[in-house]
């Protein structure tokens, strides 16, 4: 049985909602039930933003999660707010470029990804930390297949400039390789 509850949080502008949408579209492409629920209103315009994505093989009831099994925190305020909510045994993916604090919970699997540093190192500092994180997540935990995520990226960027496709696909690769090669 497949059932993933994924919470993604960060600053408005870090592409938190976009990352969630790519995951949801990829899950839909694979034939799963999916839902995407954002924080909305003023907080998505520069404050803290978050969204919950559920990918499941059964009809989705609650679209928010009290105890997400996967939690991605892109900045420090989100780290402090959401780390306590993660399900015991769950995965906490931390953007360590912006989160200095260490996770004190010992019952979580922590995946540190210095996304902003990776962007500087490999992608001229392009603002694609969200897609780097996505690549890292999928290399560790295949909530969806990488190919589906790539298709979903193209779908979600439809109508945008073409160089954004290539940049995002490259960012996905950077995140994936970072985890896959255990760098």
């Amino acid at each position, binding site marked *: 049985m497949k059932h993933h509850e994924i919470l993604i949080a960060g600053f408005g502008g870090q592409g938190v909602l976009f990352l969630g949408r790519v995951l949801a579209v990829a899950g839909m492409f694979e034939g799963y039930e999916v*839902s995407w629920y954002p924080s909305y209103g003023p907080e998505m315009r520069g404050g803290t933003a978050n969204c919950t994505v559920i990918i499941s093989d059964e009809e989705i*009831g609650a679209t928010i999660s009290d105890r997400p099994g996967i939690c991605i925190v892109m900045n420090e305020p989100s780290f402090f707010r959401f780390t306590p909510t993660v399900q015991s045994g769950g995965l906490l993916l931390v953007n360590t470029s912006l989160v200095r604090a260490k996770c004190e919970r010992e019952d979580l699997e922590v995946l540190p990804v210095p996304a902003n540093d990776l962007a500087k190192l490999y992608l001229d500092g392009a603002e694609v930390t969200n897609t780097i994180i996505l690549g890292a997540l999928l290399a560790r935990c295949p909530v969806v297949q990488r190919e589906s995520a790539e298709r979903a990226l193209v779908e979600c960027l439809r109508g945008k400039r073409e160089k954004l496709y290539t940049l995002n696909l490259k960012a996905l690769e950077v995140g994936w390789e970072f985890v896959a090669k255990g760098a």
Partner: protein
Amino acid sequence: MEKILMRGNEAVAEAAVRAGCRLYFGYPITPQNEISEYLSFRLPQVGGVFLQAESEVAAIHMVYGAAATGARVMTSSSGPGVSLMQEGLSCLAAAELPCVVVNMSRGGPGVGNIQPAQSDYFQAVKGGGHGDYRLIVLAPSTVQELVDLTYRAFYLADKYRNPVEILGDGMLGQMMEPVTFREPEFPPLPPKDWAIRGKGSGPRKWVVCLDLDPKGLEALNLKLQRKYRLLEEQETDYDTFGDPEPEILLVGFGTVGRILKSVVREGKKEGLKLALFRPITLFPFPKAALFEKAKGVKGILVVEMNLGQMLEDVELVVRGKVPVFFLGHTGGVIPTVSEILEYVHGLLKEEIRV
């Protein structure tokens, strides 16, 4: 059929266009602005008109004018905006004009906030304006159901010549889920021979919401009541889910209805015998079906994102034969699966009493 991941607000707007709505009048308010945004580009594409009115009061009276011509027309708003529309809705109901109003409700009272809430149940279901009238009220719980009920809303509005309110909330409006847009299919409707379509050779018609003769006005009221009874006989709808012989029956509509579905599933894992009763039509309320479903249960737990509004209708149905319990949050706080389960455990251990 192709599935598209779509936001609730955009899905309701696209469904309206596909249902033949060509006229929209509205005024911005969060959390439903994507409806207006979408229709502002979509309606001109199909030869329709999108118009941002100067206020909700103006918007609902523009709806009145458009509906009087027989056109399919809609407006949308949220809590405070829908409050401003109540005078117009009373007039639409009195003049028996079909239209669709979407309320993506938010925390109240007053300006409240922009988070999801269900505290507009009384306003929608009991008639928020003056006079003895009812709206047909539909409560979708998924984005797909929002699409399907939008189709049905336009059909029911025309069939019964009555305003229909789709009562969603900020969560349903803002969330994305996969949807398919099947072709709306409904039985044929009677011609709108009452519609005012300009000077011609036909008979003189008028669409008004007043009658100065007491007997005339009473006759209109009695006619409306016959219509509401007919609605109860023919159009009630609901969803059930879970154990066929539940110990506790959970009752909730819209967003809470789907949360309760998770509660039923999680409860089953813990050995609990739970079932869900989710009214889809809030008016007409599915009284007979709920009465049947309530037979033999130890208790009913009503959960709402308000402090007990549909609760009153549930209590009227069971008339004290079954204990009715209530769990509610308001102001944008969303009930969680684990707290509802904990409450159910408390009920079964009889730690909580009526």
